[in-house]
Structure formats: structure tokens, C-alpha cells
């Protein structure tokens, strides 16, 4: 504020500053509408009957038509897909924590032969994206009978997030002074106890960041879920939705699809509302993540 006021006094143009700010506001409000309107439209459409949807995108629904939501759960089985997603997200996060925390602890705080090599290997993993390797991944899993399994899908998710998690946690672990560990060791704690009781609580902020990012990544993941799961009853929500869209397109029956989109949005919106600050802070903590 102070800088602006200063300039205003100097230039003597209070009116022009107000004008400038109004222009900026108009630009920002236009963008806000561009972000918010599609979502509002979606919520409105989810309460419309099919005829209303076809009629005009600008009208309000004549009444709250909850039948779309009932359809989404019964005929479109959104609830089942959602349960699968919850299961896969929970399992993946578990895998991720169990593998990344010990790895980062050892790489960040202990000296041993091969440490440098392993750190670099995980670093290189940061640059290998999902779709490049999907064909050989599919082959390996086919060979080992790991396809069509939510358990192994979760393990793949954890493996994909491992390089970034190890990178983030190692940096965090390195910044903790050695005194705590030494004290624990002198008290007779073994390595495992020291790691679990002393180091894990101290890295909680970083672990929390991983869990938040992991939630969004795993909840939204599409390509791997599409390829590695074949039975409809095991599919996760992004796949369920895109299948639903293919079906509805030909049936021109949109209600359940819009309701399904809203149902999927709700957990994301709730978590975003609760953790907004943590999420944007976490982005800074981890540097950048694509």
C-alpha cells in the first residue's frame, strides 16, 4: 500500500490510481468467472432433468432433481468406484510412507557404501514419467500376474511417487541436528526405535506434505488405472467417470454424469478448504513439482 500511496501523492493522481485498480479488478473478476462459472454450471446441471439440460445452459433447474444423484449411485455405480479409489489411495499412501521414510532416513543420515549411487538413482527417477514406460510396465506385471489388482496398482503408485518423496524427505532429514539421535542411542534405543520414535515425529511436516500431494495424485490418476485394471468392479473413479461419459454420450442422458462429477468434486473441495494453506506452503517446501 505504502508504495502506491507514495506514488499517488507524487503524481497527484488519486483518481488515476483508483481507475487503475478498477481495471485490475475487472481483469481479475473476469478470470474468477472463467474459473468458477464452469463449476457452478456443472452443479446446476446436476439438478436438471435431461430436457432442461438440452434446452438451455443458462436457466436454473426448475426443481432440485435428486434423481440424478440416485442414478449416479445405482445405475452408474459411482459409489463403488469411489470405494475403490479410497482403498487404492489409502493403500498407496501406506506403501509410500513405509518405503520412503526409511529410505530417506538412511540416505539422509547414515554413511555407507553405495549411498551416493542410490541417491542419484532416485534422483534420476524424477525425470521418468508415466506413459513412456507403460508398455514394459504392463508386460512385467502381466508376466508376474499382477494385473487387475488394486494392491499392485497401489504399489505402482507408491513407486512412482517414491523419487520425489525420497528427495523431499532426505532434504528434511538432513536438516535435523544429530543431537537427538545421539541422545536416543545413548539411552539404549536401537536403530529402529530411534527412527520411529525420534525421527518420524520430527519429520511430520514433510510427511504431511507427502500425504496431501499423494492424496491428490492418487485420487486423480488416470493412465495407470486405465491400463492396469481391467475388471469393472475394481476400477477407480477417474476411469469410472470417463466410461460413464462414453456411455452417456450415446444415450444423451446427462443427469447422472453431472451428478457423478459433483460427487467426485466434493471430497477434493473439502480437503482443499481444510488444507489450502498447507498445500500451497507444501509447494514451496518441496521446491516445485509438476
Amino acid at each position, binding site marked *: 500500500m505504502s*508504495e502506491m500511496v507514495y506514488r499517488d501523492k507524487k503524481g497527484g493522481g488519486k483518481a488515476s490510481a483508483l481507475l487503475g485498480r478498477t481495471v485490475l479488478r475487472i481483469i481479475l473478476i473476469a478470470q474468477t468467472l472463467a474459473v468458477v462459472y464452469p463449476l457452478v454450471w456443472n452443479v446446476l446441471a446436476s439438478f436438471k432433468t435431461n430436457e432442461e439440460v438440452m434446452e438451455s445452459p443458462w436457466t436454473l433447474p426448475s426443481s432440485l432433481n435428486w434423481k440424478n444423484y440416485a442414478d449416479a449411485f445405482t445405475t452408474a455405480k459411482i459409489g463403488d468406484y469411489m470405494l475403490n479409489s479410497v482403498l487404492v489411495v489409502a493403500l498407496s499412501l501406506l506403501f509410500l510412507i513405509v*518405503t520412503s521414510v526409511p529410505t530417506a532416513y538412511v540416505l539422509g543420515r547414515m554413511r555407507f557404501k553405495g549411498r551416493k549411487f542410490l541417491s542419484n538413482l532416485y534422483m534420476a527417477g524424477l525425470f521418468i514419467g508415466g506413459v513412456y514406460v507403460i508398455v514394459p510396465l504392463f508386460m512385467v506385471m502381466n508376466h508376474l500376474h499382477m494385473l487387475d489388482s488394486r494392491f499392485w496398482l497401489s504399489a505402482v503408485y507408491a513407486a512412482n511417487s517414491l523419487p520425489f518423496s525420497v528427495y523431499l524427505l532426505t532434504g528434511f532429514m538432513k536438516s535435523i541436528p544429530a543431537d537427538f539421535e545421539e541422545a536416543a542411542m545413548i539411552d539404549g534405543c536401537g536403530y529402529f526405535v530411534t527412527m520411529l520414535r525420534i525421527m518420524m515425529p520430527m519429520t511430520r511436516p514433510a510427511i504431511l506434505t507427502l500425504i496431501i500431494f499423494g492424496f491428490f495424485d492418487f485420487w486423480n490418476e488416470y493412465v495407470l488405472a486405465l491400463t492396469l485394471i481391467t475388471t469393472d468392479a475394481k476400477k477407480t473413479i477417474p476411469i469410472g467417470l470417463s466410461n460413464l461419459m462414453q456411455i452417456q454420450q450415446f444415450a444423451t442422458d446427462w443427469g447422472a454424469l453431472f451428478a457423478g462429477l459433483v460427487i467426485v468434486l466434493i471430497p477434493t473441495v473439502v480437503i482443499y478448504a481444510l488444507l*489450502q494453506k498447507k498445500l500451497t506452503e507444501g509447494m514451496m517446501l518441496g521446491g516445485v513439482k509438476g
Partner: protein
Amino acid sequence: MTMKLRRRIFIACCLLPGLAIFGLFKVYPTVQVFGKSLFLWTGIDDAPKFVGLQNFIDLFHDDVFLLSLRNTGFLMLAVPAVTLTVALINAAILTRAQLKERAFYRTVFFFPSILSFVVIAILWSFIYHPTIGFLNSGLERIGLGQWAMSWLGDQRTVMGALAVTMIWQAAGYYMVMYMAGIDGISPDLYEAANIDGATGFRQFVHITVPMLWEIIRITIVFSINGVLAISFIIVSVMTAGGPDRHSEVVMTYLYGQAFANSNFGYAMAIGVFVFIVSLLLALLSNRLTERRDA
């Protein structure tokens, strides 16, 4: 048990679970993709036949691949350029203009970047929908009805329409990153510029952009890679490569070659090619944006 042995066992126990899944699901497939790209392999039960670089030679005689390469190139140029410019301008406005609603805009603009790509793709399919979408009917309302068209069904507009969707998704994410960067710039610089009577625009060009340059460089690389990954979901949900393959991108083409045509070796060659090109692009953009004076 000696201390040394216990230490070794501990280290091994900590590393093994991570190495097991990382090795199996990440390292091994990566090694395979390079090796098997040299084979003709056209069925899951067939024995791969070594053909050397033939797959790579075929790529350049494959019109659909070349089209998909052109489309991907368009997205990799247009989407990061517009996304990062919009993000940077918004970040500068929100941090420098000191509006009271700053937190509100920040929350709203960031929101699309946490949405599922599938949700975004479906949502935008309906925005562009020729009969029930609100883009066309909005144009009609403001008297531009003659501009209404089947945005995703016309080969002239399909790539632009997809690019807009991807920009909508990502701009807020990079904006938040830039905002944190601008908050870290010393206020003295702006104060001095104010005393000298520099306008907001000049401050943006001469202070904000140069001070953020390192962050901007990183986001360019991230954004280019993001486009490559996200284009697969956006294209497969919104257009499935249509109309008549005019929105095919390399990732969807790779996927189709592998899982629809069982051309596994060929698909892996596409993967290797794209991997190398994106690595070169990252190096190139790094080189181009390097500051000569630094």
C-alpha cells in the same frame, strides 16, 4: 551380534522395500523400453525379433505419427507460453497491487490445479458441446452466433480448444509459485523504483521478471513436461484423437499402437523418441534462458 552387523542389517531393511518397488516398477521398465524399442514385437505372446533402428526409421514415414508430433509440439509451445505469462501477470497484480481480496483470488485461481484431469476434461467437453454447451449459446446471446461451431469436431479449432483447457487447468498453480517468489523479493527495490517514478509496468519488466528468472526457468521445464503427460488424458477423454486423428498427440498414439494394435516394439520406440526429445527440449530451454551476464 556386533554393532556393525546390526547397523548393516538396519540399513538393508530400510532400503529394500523401496528398492524393490522402485526397481520393479520404474527402473526395470525404463531399461526395457530402451532395449525393446529395437525389436519388432507385435503380440504379447510373440517372440520379439531384433530389427535394429528400423522402428525409428518407420516413425518418420508414419504420417499419423508426424501429425501427432506436430500437435504435441504445438501444445508444448503454446500451453507453457500462455500459461506462464498469465500466471506471472496475475501473480504480479496480486502481490503488487495489494488488493484486499488477494487471498480470495489466490484460492479461486489455484483451485483448478487440484481437480482431477478427467473431471476437467469432461467439464470442458460440455463447455464446447455444440448443442448443450454454454460457449456456443453464449456467443449467440451476445450476437456472435455466426462464430458458434463444433469446437472439438473441427480440425481447425480442436487443438486450440484443447490448449485452452490445459491453460485453464495450470495457470493458477504456477501463479501461486510465482507469488511466493515475488513475496521474497526485497521491497526496497520496488520502493526505490517508486521514488524514481517507475510505473507498475516498468517495475514488472525491470524488477519482477529479472528477480524471478530462476523460478521462471524451472517452471518452463516443468510446464513442458506437464503438457506431455496431461495431453494424454485431455485428448483421450475429450476427443479420442479425433476428428479424423487431427488431435492425436504422441502419447495417445503410443498408447493406441501398444494396446489397440499390439505394436509393442513400435510403441516403445515412440516412447524412447519422445523421452529423448523432451530431455533435449529441457536442456535447450535451459540454455536459451541462461542469463549471459550472470
